[in-house]
């Protein structure tokens, strides 16, 4: 930024043509911009836009893969069937529950982790940083298998380790009921994704000006007061981004449920419901309608976040 030989250009700002009229140079820049960014843009659009449009189209038909001759147009019929079905609402409830529980716990736990990391002794920090990346990097399916085997009544050690707790013994069947199954699913999700949140929060923590902290300390604020009045408000942007990404991620939960319960005992998520209608039941029409509804839910959440919490993603990323 302390360039002396060149005209003053702010580091983060693109080199732009002089104001007033589109010069040849700026036209060339436009062309170059699209030529460079175009391929990535096209690939992203093709791989997602085409399939979702096809899903929208199929969702208007009664179409079974094994019986293509009897395909018939049903308009919005599939959507009525789904929205009036308790199974859909149960899947939505399970998905929302998993999302809320995991995101809240992850946020609290991730914040605690970030605090420890930020204060940790320099000898310990690299070790912690490496360790914390491991759950993030491990395959979700592997994590789900690990937790499933740990709680499973025959292969697991959890029952024998926790047998001192009332209500838990060698016969405790975690995957036998809805709530205990969901608990284990949530645990595995929390384990896997807390580190990601904590890293985002750690970066946010680093942005809280030390001056403010010191000033508050001088004013006699307790640690707790400083946390709520200084630290958290100053890292709101980081918290919101973490919240948004994790919420959307949690709402699409599929792998863990597939591995751990396969949807038994009312643990089916919306993604899993969509998977079963299209892939297992080969009801392409009905399944596409579930997929489209899932897509709309995700868009709605993203929209609500961005509008409701006024997250300006561009701003948090240093855009204008």
């Amino acid at each position, binding site marked *: 930024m302390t360039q002396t030989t060149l005209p003053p250009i702010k580091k983060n700002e693109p080199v732009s043509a002089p104001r007033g009229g589109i010069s040849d140079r700026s036209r060339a820049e436009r062309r170059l911009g699209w030529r460079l960014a175009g391929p990535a843009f096209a690939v992203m659009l093709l791989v997602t836009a085409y399939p979702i449009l096809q899903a929208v189209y199929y969702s208007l038909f009664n179409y079974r893969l094994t019986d293509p001759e009897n395909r018939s147009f049903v308009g919005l019929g599939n959507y009525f069937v789904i929205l009036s079905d308790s*199974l859909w609402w149960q899947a939505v409830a399970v998905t929302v529950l998993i999302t809320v529980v995991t995101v809240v716990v992850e946020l609290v736990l991730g914040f605690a982790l970030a605090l420890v990391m930020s204060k940790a002794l320099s000898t310990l920090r690299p070790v912690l940083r490496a360790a914390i990346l491991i759950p993030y990097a491990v395959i979700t399916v592997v994590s789900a298998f690990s937790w499933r085997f740990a709680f499973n009544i025959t292969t697991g050690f959890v029952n024998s380790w926790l047998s001192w707790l009332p209500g838990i013994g060698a*016969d405790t069947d975690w995957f036998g009921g809805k709530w205990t199954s969901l608990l284990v699913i949530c645990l595995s999700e929390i384990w896997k994704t807390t580190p990601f949140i904590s890293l985002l929060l750690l970066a946010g923590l680093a942005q809280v000006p030390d001056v403010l902290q010191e000033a508050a300390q001088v004013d006699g604020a307790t640690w707790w007061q400083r946390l709520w009045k200084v630290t958290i408000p100053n890292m709101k942007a980081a918290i919101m981004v973490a919240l948004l990404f994790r919420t959307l991620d949690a709402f699409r939960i599929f792998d863990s449920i597939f591995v751990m319960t396969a949807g038994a005992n009312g643990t089916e998520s919306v993604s899993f419901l969509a998977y079963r209608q299209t892939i297992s039941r080969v009801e392409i029409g009905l399944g596409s309608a579930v997929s489209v509804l899932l897509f709309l839910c995700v868009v709605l959440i993203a929209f609500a976040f961005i509008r409701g919490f006024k997250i300006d993603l561009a701003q948090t990323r240093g855009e204008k």
Partner: protein
Amino acid sequence: MHTSRIARPARGGRRTRRGLIAASAAAVLASSLAACGGGDGGSTPTLTWYINPDSGGQAEIASRCSEASDGRYNIEVAQLPRTPEGQREQLVRRLAAQDESIDLMSLDVVFAPELAQAGFLAPVPADLADRVSEGTFPGSVESATWDDELVVIPFWANTQLLWYRKSVAEAAGLDMTQPVTWDQLVAAAQDQQKILSAQGRRSESLTVWLTALIESAGGSIIEENSTNPEDIKLGLASPAGQRAAEVMHDVAVSGVVGPAFTTASEDISASQFESADAGFMVNWPYVWAQAQTKVEAGTLDQSVPEDYGWTLYPRVDADTPSAPPLGGINLGVSAYSRYADFGYEATECITSDENQAYYMNTNGNPASSAAVYDDPEVQEVYPMANTIRESLAAAKPRPLTPYYSEVTGGIQREYHPPASVSDSTGQQADDLISAVLSGDQLL
């Protein structure tokens, strides 16, 4: 009762002869191959056989039958997912895509109608249909038939037996040489404080259990079959359905089904039956081979399997014979295969009595041909061979319909957990499945 009608040794003998011819052809081929140092590999068609995972038996049979083909075709195996549902998902989607790379398929006994109705199976040559139907258990033939035509070739057949610990049955004063009922088993297990193991998990095994109960009570899950999903009439709410629900509920709440009954699979039942609390169990014959393997590995005491007893599947009512569950694999030939004629030729080799006996002895999967049970080696490996044959002769397949996954999915949803089953469950399941079949509800 069907046994005498089925196990006709004369026919079994003919099948074995065919096996011998195949074997000698193989020997001739092997020597000629050795002589010319490899055949004209380029022009030999390769049949791809999609198999369910096993202990290598199907791969071995594939190479035997490739040799027996006299160089006219080669059979390669490719593995499908572990669960029957997973196998079906993959095959149905690929066949719907008219995938030419599938020639032969190992299909679970419940999937033939769906594939046949969709036109995914090449028609079975009439003479072959006659040949393979003879001497094969009626349940297996029924499961291989759709719309009065044989559409797949029965390969091996499975059935559940009632396994008991001799010591427990004796202490409870239960005469196991006579047919026993579910009520008697519950009472005996309660009396001896031992476990009665069954499969209460929300999976295919629940449908297996319910089918056996309803059929044993003299009813059927599908009372009137149809190719039109909306015309299928279900019998879950019939008197037999009610009786089946009652038995299922009584067993589930008996307090002797062991912990984790709602997630108990065949494997969990098998390990329960090896424990000190074991009393009775309904399960497939693989538990015997498994226990023997464990004894050899030194992880199970010899005395445990020595205490195993076996008999026919329990009855629902004392005076009605039981209808044991039927499982197993049928072979399908894809309609999109370029070598359907070779495919059917290969199925005849694969399902020869010789290969069925080999498969039964090495991979633990019982033969669908009754004559195989007379094989001395089978008799030696399976002390319960005669019971298996008797059970298979009486076994009834699960509902045969192109909409099988909807039917079994609906059953699993309504009848799980088994302890929650009540008088109204049958009607609810009936309503749910009908609504799903008419496209008015999700599943």
